[in-house]
């Protein structure tokens, strides 16, 4: 119920911000659309801890600034590799086991690795991540990383 209410509010705010009109008819149409989407999502059973993870919201605002900092750092490193005349790359594939328990935690981890320049998640499952790294050190950097620990904390299972 909490998740359905939250989804409805988020959808309605999204409507208002995108439209920018505040006439009664359009406000009512937005409320009707938001309600319809909430009811359809409930019928499809996609509104739960995984589909609308409100338990992660508070923690994620601590995680995102850290992730942006990491993206900026590794983007700088990859830019230097691209502009280096010798092109010092040493592509590697690494496998490791992520510590997240839920699907949404694993998806967050896999997406965070891919967002960070220099590393891409090729395969993601509960037992194993396969990551392509642009250099040996960037490949080795994803195994049991600080990112892994931080996302397990954000996930909220421990």
């Amino acid at each position, binding site marked *: 119920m909490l998740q359905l209410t939250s989804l409805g509010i988020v959808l309605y705010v999204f409507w208002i*911000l995108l439209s920018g009109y505040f006439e009664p008819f359009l406000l009512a149409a937005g409320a009707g659309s938001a309600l319809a989407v909430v009811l359809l999502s409930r019928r499809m059973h996609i509104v739960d801890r995984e589909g609308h993870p409100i338990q992660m919201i508070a923690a994620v605002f601590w995680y995102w600034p850290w992730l942006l900092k990491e*993206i900026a750092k590794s983007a700088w490193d990859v830019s230097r590799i691209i502009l280096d005349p010798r092109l010092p790359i040493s592509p590697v594939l690494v496998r490791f086991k992520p510590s997240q328990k839920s699907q949404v935690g694993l998806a967050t981890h*896999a*997406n965070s690795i891919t967002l960070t320049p220099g590393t891409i998640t090729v395969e993601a499952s509960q037992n194993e991540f396969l990551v*392509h790294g642009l250099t040996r050190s960037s490949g080795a950097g994803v195994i049991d990383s600080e990112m892994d620990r931080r996302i397990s904390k954000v996930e909220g299972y421990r």
Partner: protein
Amino acid sequence: MSVALEILSWICIAAGGAFCVIGAFGLIRMPDFYTRVHAASITDTVGVGLLLLGMLLQAGLSLIAVKLVMIGLLFLFANPTATHALVKAALSRGLAPLLAPGEDSSKR
């Protein structure tokens, strides 16, 4: 709009543009598909991020700023998903990645 904000905004936009060019440059220089994707990720994280930040400073506090933030969030969620799908499809169709000497792609 104050001059300082204007200058800061243009620094962000110019830097964003520069990172987009670096990404494109890497796309040409890298030797195979997988390493090229790494170069492209420069463009769609820092390049796009700095461009949006510069435009945010131009927009000030308005609905346009909110929409720019939404575009940024869309990028942060949709981009890694698309990249992952692309790379996974390439590997499962048997496109062997070029690896550094001494690295074995079948290693577990």
